[in-house]
Structures are given as C-alpha cells and as structure tokens.
C-alpha cells in the first residue's frame, strides 16, 4: 500500500519510485502515448537506417521518406483517390450485404435452438471452405466485373459473421428473457424488446471484428482481376517496379482499417452510452 508522502527522505523515495514492469498495474496516459510514439519512431528509424546502410538494393527497399513522397505523386498524378474510393465502395457494399443476411440469421440461430439446428451444420461447413477457392467459379459465373468482387468479399466474411453473432446471442443472460416472460411478454415482444436491444452492442463488436477480414479479401479480389482499386494500383506498380507505391498501398489499407476501427468504436460509445465501461 502507498504510504502518505512525508518529508522524511527515505519514505518519499519509496512512494515515488516507479517501475516499468509491474503486474497488472495501470500506467499513466502520458507514458502510454510516449511508449506508443517511441515504438513508431524506432520502427521508422530502423527502416531508414537499413536503407542508408544499403542492406539491400535501394530499388527493392525504398525508405519511409520515398514512400511518403510517392503518396503525393499518387494523389496528384495518378488519381489515387478514385482507386481508394473504389476499394471503399467494394468493402462497404459487400459488408452491408453480408450484415443484412448475417445479423438477423445469427440472432435467430442464437435464440432458437431449432433455427440453429437447421442452419448451423451448413454454415459451419461453409466456414471451412476458403473464400479464395471460389474465385475460379465466380470468374466463370459472374465474369471479372464488380459482382464477382462483391461476391468474393461477401463469401469471405458472411459465415464467420453469422457464427460470431450467433455465439453472442447464445450468451445473452437467460434471465433477461425469463424476466420479460414472467412480466407477460409473448415471443414476438421478447424478441423485439429484449433480444434485439441486448444484441445491438454485440452486433457492432462483431462487425468491427469482421471488417478487418473484409479488407484482406479486398486485396485478393483486386490483385486477381481488377483495373481499379488499391490492389489494382499495387499490381500496376509491380509491373513498373515501383516498390514505393506498393508500400504506399499497404500503408493506405492499414490506415483505412485503423480509421474504421476508430469510427466504429466512437459509434459504440455514442449509440450505447448505457454500457458498463470495461477497462
């Protein structure tokens, strides 16, 4: 326990002494920021250092500054914004479609054992089929256009999304439902006034988890066959050995992923202010 700070030299030292490695002790926000920043600085520093030391061919490993300047070039001369817009559209459109199916189905499967028994064997089996293995089929059925890419992204996330939401619905406290039943609620009322509102925050969490996966399939779809999008830009850059632009593409996807995570977290706080705050 912390003793009150006194003027006696020996004791005040014991109180103010801070150690870096303490089990489960919180650190101050300021030191958290400093630690995060120094990790980034170290990362870029090492990268730039490796380039300066000519660890490999400068063409194959451009430094962070080169990558940064290639961003400017991409935006001003190569209409990069259109590529980003296209990729965003693909992710968001396919993800919306996946949610439209997965949210109601997952909730019903987690709530009613009969619905689960009907769909779950199917959904679990599909989950084990890698979405990219459908690419040849999708190319033949849908051609190389937009619908093929949306279908791939859809298949990549929908089964996992259903399962995640089902698991969340199953772990709702049974006594919420029992309370509503003993207050006279019928099945429809319990579904709409207890199960659905109790599930909404979990649905948002599941969406946050799966949106990251959606970006993975986006890159696959755009590398396979596309003339627009971040992945397509990266394939074009490969043809001309513009390593800096490929790296800029990777950074873009990372930043967009981060941005969506932040947005969804903010939505969580705004939409569900009543939630117990964990951590």
């Amino acid at each position: 326990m912390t003793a009150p700070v006194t003027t006696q030299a020996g004791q005040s030292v014991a109180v103010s002494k801070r150690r870096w490695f303490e089990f489960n002790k919180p650190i101050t926000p300021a030191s958290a920021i400093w630690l995060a920043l120094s990790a980034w600085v170290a990362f870029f520093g090492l990268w730039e250092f490796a380039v300066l030391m000519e660890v490999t061919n400068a063409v194959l490993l451009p430094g962070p500054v080169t990558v940064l300047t290639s961003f400017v070039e991409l935006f001003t001369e190569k209409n990069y914004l259109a590529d980003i817009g296209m990729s965003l559209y693909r992710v968001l459109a396919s993800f919306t479609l996946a949610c439209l199916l997965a949210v109601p189905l997952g909730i019903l499967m987690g709530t009613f054992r009969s619905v689960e028994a009907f769909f779950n064997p199917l959904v679990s089996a599909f989950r084990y089929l890698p979405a990219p293995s459908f690419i040849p089929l999708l190319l033949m059925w849908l051609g190389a256009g937009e619908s093929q890419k949306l279908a791939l992204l859809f298949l990549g996330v929908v089964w996992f999304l259903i399962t995640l939401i089902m698991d969340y619905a199953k772990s709702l406290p049974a006594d919420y439902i029992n309370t509503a039943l003993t207050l006279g609620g019928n099945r429809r009322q319990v579904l709409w006034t207890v199960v659905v509102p109790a599930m909404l925050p979990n649905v948002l969490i599941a969406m946050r988890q799966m949106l990251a996966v959606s970006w993975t399939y986006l890159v696959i779809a755009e590398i396979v066959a596309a003339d627009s999008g971040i992945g397509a830009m990266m394939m074009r850059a490969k043809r001309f050995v513009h390593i800096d632009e490929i790296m800029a593409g990777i950074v873009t996807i990372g930043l967009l992923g981060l941005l969506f995570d932040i947005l969804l977290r903010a939505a969580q706080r705004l939409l569900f202010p009543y939630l117990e705050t964990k951590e």
Partner: protein
Amino acid sequence: MIADNPQQKSHSKLLLEQVSKEYPISGGDRLLAVSDVSFDVIENEVCVLLGPSGCGKSTILHMMAGLNDPTAGRLTLDGREIHGPSRDRGMVFQGYTSFPWLTVEQNVEYGMRLNKVPPAERRQRVDFFIDRVNLTRFRKAYPKQLSGGMKQRVAIARMLANAPEISLMDEPFGALDAETRWHMQELLLDIIDDSQMTVVMVTHDIPEALFLADRIVFLSSHPGRIKEILTMDFKQGRRITNKEELIETPGYIEIEREILHMMREEASDEE
C-alpha cells in the same frame, strides 16, 4: 413497529401436488432434483423456501413461474393449472436483471408496456413504485450507474408495477453485502405488508427467512423433498418489521436453533 398479519382467512392461492422434476444429465441418466413435493401458499402470506444449496429451491420456483415444467404432479394458481409463464406470476431473479439499455423508469414501466396498460395509468404506477423503493432521484439513470441494491430495487419495482397475483423471488438479495441486505429486507417487508402481497421467496440465509416468513418450507437435498413446514408461531400472527425487535422476541432463538440443527443434519447426510 408491529403490524397486523392479514393472513387470517386462509385461502390457498398456489398449490403444489406431488410435484417432481427430473433433469436429463450427461450419459442418458436423469437427475431427480425435486421429489414428490406438496404444499400450498396461502393468499397474502410470505412463504419462504429454505434449504441447503442444490436442494431444488430454484427449480421449484421456476416451475411456479412456468419457466420449467414438472416431470410429475401439478401446480395450480387459484385452481387453474400453470402452463408457461404469465404476468400472474412475477419473478425477481438472483442475478441483476434490470435491462441496461433502459433507464430506471423505463425498466419499471416495461412490463406495463408489454401488457398495453394505458399511458396515464402507467405513469402513475411508475411514479408510485419508484417512490416506494426510494429511487425517485435515480429515475432517469441507467442501471450501470446504480449499486447492486438499487438494481434489485428496480427489479422489485418492475415486478410490482406489473401487479402480479403472486410474487416469486429467487434469492433476490443473495449478491448483496450484509448491511444492504438488511435494509432491503426491511423495505421489502414494509412493502409486502402494506400492499398485501402473496410472496414465495427462496433463500438459504436463516435470519432472512425468519425475518420475512409467515411460514418456512424447509427442504432437504438429493432429491429435494420437504423436510418440515414451520409456522412462525413465535410472531403470534404479527409481522415484526424491525430486526432488533425480532431477535428479542421470545421464541426466536429457539426456532433459529431448530433450523440450524436441521441444516447440520442435512450437511452430515451429504457425507
């Protein structure tokens, strides 16, 4: 404070006749959780189910609520057989069940909304019951801002506002610290007394049982069956809503000792 016990004209409200409950367990076996239990709950009485952990108290209460069907025997409320849950039989659960997405007043109003109670009446009953459980200052708060005792008061008010015929409570104060528990017991007994409720309450806390009960059904375990039904003769047909006074009432110590003795017998049977 001494109040009249309104339990004089003994009309039996809820009746259990040879009720048994088996649960299927792993390996195709069946566990007999409740065996051949028969008793009745009299109108306007507080009937406490007391017994060691795992003796089937919650199982009996869930069957009364209609959340669980008996394997044998029957349960009736005012002569009508119980099938499934209904607003006749309100229930307060051991865990916190105030809906976190609703404010205190929305929680209390919730049951009445389900039952399409007209808005004016709804508002009036919300006001009354929120006041009755001393939460008026917190009516716009969400459950996350409330202490455990307050959350249980929300659950109690929500059940009462829905005007059930009988109130079932499964260790409603089980998760609370000793002092809060005390206050809650006194508050509950006050409410029970002036709104003439019929209550079945589960507990394994002996002082709580003695304080609240008009009658105690003592259950033994494995399988759960009735060991003894104790009438609180020492209270001489009154309800004593003050704890110190209860403990000083002649006869209290004796009955507490008798129950402790039964508890110990149960425990030694386990070995």
